[in-house]
């Protein structure tokens, strides 16, 4: 047998999270790669069918660990669509702010992962260290560092604390200044460019057909963003651009994420200035006897890794009939990886994986 079988398995420092890539390697080149998932499966969709709408609210945010707010927001909007619940204006503004903060901390985490997989160990220390200041803001707003349990059907649980605005604006200035250092250390780094340009290339014509979404799609030059195609919450009231870079390789994806990082900072600043006053929460009836009429809905939003959708079916009882989560990693981590990895070098596997933003828990829920 000419090939060597390598398991970049569940317990491997290069893999983000708990999945296994089975590689057939010949010398330094990869011939065939197969992704194995199921290491983090706890059948959460089955569990939500056994719980009423409000009981499955704490479970929902534990699907995707780096970005819990995306799930909370999706679940809340899906239930509101099914039950026809109205959300006050101020709650929408706060929800958008929470989403943008989630995008910021996810990009900081990505920068650490990407450069860590390439061997630049100073970058993760800086970025994940700065991400912690963002988690402090989350803790102040919602009481929890990672799992926030803050956005629920009908609005938001708490209003902004006093003085939150000034602290948030200071943090935004700090992050903007830090971006200069990150650019010098990572994005403009000669060796980073040499390794990133031309590796893990996704052809532009096949990108849509392979189901590529989010920054990875924009990295191939196709301009699609759920925040513009189908503005949810208050994205139609904000001004922000969506970048696209040609090339479809790791470097163009990195530039897309860098540009969006700066855009999120400007979005949060806009929200902080123009947030209206008013109630933050429409009370829902007794959660144990709250029956939602039969109906289907598909709600999606732009997470830091791409289109994150919730398909929800209710059957008139107080428990929901079916929920199905469609995360970007489901496509990026399995079918897309099996198309890109063959032909690339063994050393680039974890770099490509990080650049696609693969988060294993959302692959098998």
């Amino acid at each position, binding site marked *: 047998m000419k090939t060597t079988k390598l398991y970049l398995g569940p317990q491997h*420092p*290069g893999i983000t999270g708990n999945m296994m890539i089975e590689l057939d390697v010949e010398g330094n080149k990869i011939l065939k790669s197969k992704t194995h998932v199921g290491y983090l499966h706890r059948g959460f969709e089955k569990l939500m069918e056994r719980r009423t709408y409000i009981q499955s609210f704490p479970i929902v945010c534990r699907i995707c660990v780096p970005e819990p707010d995306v799930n909370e927001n999706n679940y809340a909007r899906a239930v509101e669509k099914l039950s026809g619940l109205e959300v006050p204006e101020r709650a929408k503004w706060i929800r958008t702010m929470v989403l943008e903060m989630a995008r910021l901390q996810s990009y900081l985490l990505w920068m650490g992962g990407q450069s860590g997989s390439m*061997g630049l*160990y*100073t970058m993760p*220390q800086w970025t994940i260290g700065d991400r912690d200041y963002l988690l402090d803001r989350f803790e102040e707003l919602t009481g929890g560092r990672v799992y926030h349990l803050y956005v629920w059907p009908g609005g938001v649980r708490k209003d902004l604390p006093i003085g939150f605005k000034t602290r948030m604006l200071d943090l935004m200035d700090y992050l903007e200044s830090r971006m200069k250092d990150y650019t010098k250390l990572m994005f403009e780094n000669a*060796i*980073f460019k040499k*390794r990133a340009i031309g590796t893990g290339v996704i052809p532009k014509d096949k990108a849509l057909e392979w189901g590529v979404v989010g920054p990875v799609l924009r990295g191939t030059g196709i301009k699609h963003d759920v925040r513009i195609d189908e503005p949810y919450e208050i994205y139609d009231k904000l001004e922000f651009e969506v970048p696209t870079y040609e090339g479809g390789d790791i470097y163009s994806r990195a530039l897309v994420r860098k540009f969006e990082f700066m855009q999120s900072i400007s979005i949060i600043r806009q929200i902080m200035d123009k947030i209206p006053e008013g109630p933050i929460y429409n009370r829902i009836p007794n959660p144990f006897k709250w029956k939602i009429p039969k109906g289907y809905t598909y709600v999606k939003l732009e997470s830091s890794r791409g289109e994150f959708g919730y398909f929800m079916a209710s059957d008139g009882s107080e428990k929901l009939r079916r929920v199905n989560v469609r995360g970007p990693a489901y496509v990026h981590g399995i079918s897309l990886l099996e198309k890109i990895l063959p032909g690339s070098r063994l050393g680039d596997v974890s770099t490509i994986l990080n650049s696609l933003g693969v988060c294993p828990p959302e692959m098998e829920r």
Partner: protein
Amino acid sequence: MSTDSMYRLLVTIAVILGSIIYGFFINSLARRITARVQNRMGPPLKQPFIDVIKLYSKRTFVTHGIMQTLGPILMLTGIISTLILIPYGKGYLTLYSSNGDLITILYIMTFGQLAMALAVGQAGNPYGTIGVARGLTRMFGYELPLILALISLIALNHSADVNVIIANQHGGIANWNAFRHPFVGITALLAMLGMMSYQPFDNASAPAEVASGPITEFGGKFMAIMMTTNAMFVVAKLALLVDLFFGGASNIFILALKIFLLYLYPLFVGLVFPRFAMEDTFLFFWKWPTLIGFIGLAIAIF
């Protein structure tokens, strides 16, 4: 055993133990410096010693065969025999360097690496073998500029004996080899990056690509010996480079200081650069450093 050779033996043993301790000390200092650059505290200074004692106190050692048990011992032998060939100062501190010149030192360094490579081979882990293949390719890469630098030194000093080379560099900083012959100095410094297996060229034991490379199957006592030999190897290489390019040292403390300062150079380069891909590592050493090396050699001859 005349008193003179007995005395020399004692000094050698002292130097070997000293290089272990000093190797660990530099290692812990390096960890503190990297921590400071990454704005965090970093482990306490005595951490490497604690690690080695803990590794030694492990209760089970797992080997795949005789070669994996023999590997670390042979590596220790290779490193110690390299150490005794390098002069550390004047008088007895020249240890046994009267028995082998620069070419002998260059070749006996590979003895330790071969021993470790065989031990890794016996363990039968694909990651280990890939790590060794990468390490050897990198060695094949950085040897060219290193040899060019050493040969031009031999050509300049008309002798391959390290003590003679040190003697020729007496006097102020001006006539240290690194500054008197800039091209040779630059080649040696670039080649040194490869020797130290720090960040830009640590693809042999890159955790993300090949899970910790050659030492994947080594735990407990083998890992302890691996760490001590690593520390000694760092000190030996740096001492050799200090002797050849930075004027050697009259007493041991100046040598220690010079070794530490020289050690900072690959450390800082490693902190700000990610890892090269394997092909680029190989090509990097065969492009610019070799060109500068050839120029240096040409100047040295004519």
